[in-house]
């Protein structure tokens, strides 16, 4: 008898089959990973387990061998199932303690909240599983790692036996990820059952016992992680062989400097400096990685470079030409391309067609328009060309950008920027939320660009991505250039990842 068994789960959303006849089981006390590309139906399946969705008729869920109809998240919690979403659902001005007890506050005889009892109960949980949290800290002051721990404690406080974690490490720093692994091991040691939704392969190798792979809404197989390689996992997930290691030749060393950021200071929304006296130069034919934890001035830096935010002091030069505080259009015309951090809100007009998104910056130029009138045929021709070259699917240029998958949306942006033939490309989180196939593609395009002698600035919160792609690595912390590693140093380093992690957190190696 299994702890949790799913039989023939099907869920059709609109015209899309999110889950098709999925049967699988979870064993008590295991860490079970759910692996699949975007749109494989992982989240839908988890929401069905958590009672947020229901299976279409025919699907059944058995809990401890008993057929159970999970009607709502509240019901799931009652049954001992807890869920930690990728985007936390916490009340920011409340303290950690208040967030944990919210909704099931213990009350004293006067009907007031019994904080003493709550504190004692939570203390017990914290000690049992080795959490590191300050119960009186406000969520808005807490790190992302702490917030995640609070979410996990919340499920434990509600006596969860099965804890579902959706993309738990997507937002964590390397150090926080290690702590997260430790907590998962403790939970498992105390007999809890963990389900982790992820598409990070090494994470599965590190913590999971078994791994169920979904593809396009269908169950593919369940593998024993200890005897399966990362390559094998990737192959089963994508359905073809995948090149996990980015292959690239060493860069030409004598690349001249094409892009310089000189002592730039930028103010944030609160009118305080968030980028502080930052300098960095990029060479032709190299990818420079800028590592850093989310919120250390990366967004503001990129906005300032691309003309969306004012540079208070300092200057930015491209090909020796000063582009400080020019308009976005002028900067673009000076051969600076960029893939923005938020592809859906900044990179694309989601309600526009693919072909319209291709010419967002260049609609005024020939051949796309003439005397202010759009030449639709030229637009379509051009779009079809790009769609073919960058293998964008579906291939219909009349489709709205919102109808595309994340990977294809990113390809639209990439195609647009690359076709403009920039000397410098700023790629901000270019693969966030994309699946393995799309990541592979974007990475290979960035390398291609580098090999054509362009300079690429790769800004990413994913340390693995930075390490895999970059020829040079810089670290930003608190808006300052915290560390710079050239090729020599990277090659020599024996503990590159740990060192970078330390830099990102504002430390210095001993």
């Amino acid at each position, binding site marked *: 008898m299994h702890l949790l068994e799913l039989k023939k789960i099907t869920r059709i959303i609109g015209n899309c089959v999110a889950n098709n006849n999925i049967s699988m089981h979870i064993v008590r006390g295991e860490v079970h990973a759910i692996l699949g590309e975007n749109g494989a139906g992982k989240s839908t399946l988890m929401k069905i387990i958590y009672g947020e969705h229901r299976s279409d008729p025919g699907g059944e869920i058995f809990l401890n061998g008993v057929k159970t109809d999970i009607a709502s998240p509240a019901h799931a919690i009652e049954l001992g199932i807890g869920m930690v979403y990728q985007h936390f659902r916490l009340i920011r001005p409340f303290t950690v303690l208040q967030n944990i007890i919210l909704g099931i506050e213990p009350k004293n005889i006067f009907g007031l909240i019994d904080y003493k009892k709550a504190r004692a109960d939570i203390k017990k949980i914290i000690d049992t599983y080795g959490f590191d949290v300050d119960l009186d800290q406000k969520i808005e002051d807490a790190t992302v790692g702490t917030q995640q721990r609070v979410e996990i404690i919340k499920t434990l406080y509600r006596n969860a036996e099965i804890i579902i974690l959706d993309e738990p490490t997507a937002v964590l720093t390397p150090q926080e990820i290690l702590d997260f692994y430790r907590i998962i091991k403790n939970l498992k040691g105390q007999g809890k059952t963990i389900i982790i939704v992820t598409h990070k392969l090494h994470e599965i190798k590190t913590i999971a016992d078994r791994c169920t792979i979904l593809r396009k809404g269908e169950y593919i197989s369940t593998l024993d992680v200890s005897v399966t390689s990362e390559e094998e996992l990737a192959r089963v997930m994508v359905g073809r062989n995948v090149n996990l290691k980015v292959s690239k030749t060493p860069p030409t060393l004598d690349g001249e400097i094409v892009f310089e950021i000189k002592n730039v200071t930028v103010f944030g929304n609160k009118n305080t400096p968030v980028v502080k006296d930052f300098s960095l130069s990029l060479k032709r034919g190299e990818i420079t990685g800028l590592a850093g934890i989310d919120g250390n001035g990366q967004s503001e830096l990129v906005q300032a470079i691309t003309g969306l935010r004012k540079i208070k002091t300092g200057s930015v030069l491209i090909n020796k030409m000063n582009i400080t505080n020019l308009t976005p259009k002028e900067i673009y015309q000076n051969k600076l391309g960029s893939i923005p951090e938020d592809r859906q809100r*900044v*990179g694309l007009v989601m309600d*526009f067609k693919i072909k319209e998104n291709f010419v*967002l910056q260049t*609609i005024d130029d020939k051949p796309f328009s003439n005397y202010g*009138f759009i030449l639709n045929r030229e637009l379509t021709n051009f779009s079809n060309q790009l769609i073919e070259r960058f293998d964008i699917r579906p291939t219909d240029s009349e489709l709205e950008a919102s109808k595309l998958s994340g990977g294809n949306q990113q390809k639209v942006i990439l195609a647009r920027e690359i076709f403009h033939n920039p000397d410098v490309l700023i790629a901000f989180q270019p693969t966030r939320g994309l699946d393995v196939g799309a990541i592979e593609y974007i990475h290979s395009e960035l390398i291609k660009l580098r090999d054509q002698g362009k300079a690429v600035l790769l800004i990413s919160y994913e340390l693995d991505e930075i390490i895999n792609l970059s020829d040079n690595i810089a670290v930003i912390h608190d808006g300052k250039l915290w560390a710079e590693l050239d090729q020599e140093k990277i090659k020599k380093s024996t503990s590159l990842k740990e060192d970078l992690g330390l830099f990102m957190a504002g430390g210095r190696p001993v």
Partner: protein
Amino acid sequence: MKKFIISMLSIVLGLIVGGVILKLSGISPLEAYQVMWEGAFSQPNYISYIIIRSTPLILTGLSVAFAFRTGLFNIGAEGQFIIGAMTAAYFGFVLNLNPWIQIPLVMLMATLAAAFYGGLSGFLKARFGVHEVLSTIMLNWIALYLSNHVIFIEGFRRPSMETTEFINPSTSITILEDWKISDMGLEWLSRHEFWQSFMRPPVNAGIFIALLAVVIVWIILNKTTFGFKLKAVGFSPLASEYAGINTRIKMTQSMMISGALAGLAGATHVMGVSKNIAVLAAHEGYGFDGIAVALIGSNHPVGVLFSGFFLGALKYSGQKIQSSLEAPSEVIGIMIGAIIFFIAIPSIFNFVLKSWRKNP
């Protein structure tokens, strides 16, 4: 297509709500709707009245829809209408040129004045971040009192009246105005019953201007780079800014065009129907009705054309249930309100459409 279905369903539901209200007031809804139907279409002159009524609604509807496509909510069509009407009344009175010059010139002046007035809100938003809803509401009142003030300019005011002098005949866009009352015209019309009835109201060229505006707005939005950028700003200001579009200038330009369209509504109204302006105690509602027109027409130029006619017909025929059935004509207002209410909650329709698809 989906938007069209939603509008149609909302209209049906609105009529049902109106029917319920009528029933509650003790009047047979069927009878009332029959009176309205006959009151709208049974005589040629009813049709021309509906066209006359619809003309300003189509133009103010276009005005609101155009701004909306740029992501701006122009509540100020009312004020821009007043500015347009006031300017047309003034120059139509003080200038007296050949009609072929006079009419376009006066219309142009009215349009420009209203464009400036609307653009002011766009500028305030772009430059100082003043929300356009606030600024246009205030500018509506400023327009109202400015107009009331201008009416009292000596020489412009009609002696001892609370109105202005009439515009010169050279400014009039009423069709065959003199001929209609000439001997020859009267004689011809008496032999042609349909036209006699049709020409009785002040039929004017405003509707052709409105149709032309529909076409121009459609071309701007769908065929020009200017419209492309306006729409981009409307859909996503962040993406537009990133793509190098100057969102501030686009906002101002959009409000200028929006204002121009509302001003044109005011101008055609003065030049074709009222021939002068009078002191207003409150807003007449042409601009506010434009919001309803734009919503029902789902902000599409052609949609606005039809919803303008629909609302014009509804308002005109609604008066008739008061006279013949003693039913409250406010029911029409409730109906329009209900229609907009239903349009504003599309989730209901998504639900309905979904269950239709499941059980066809």
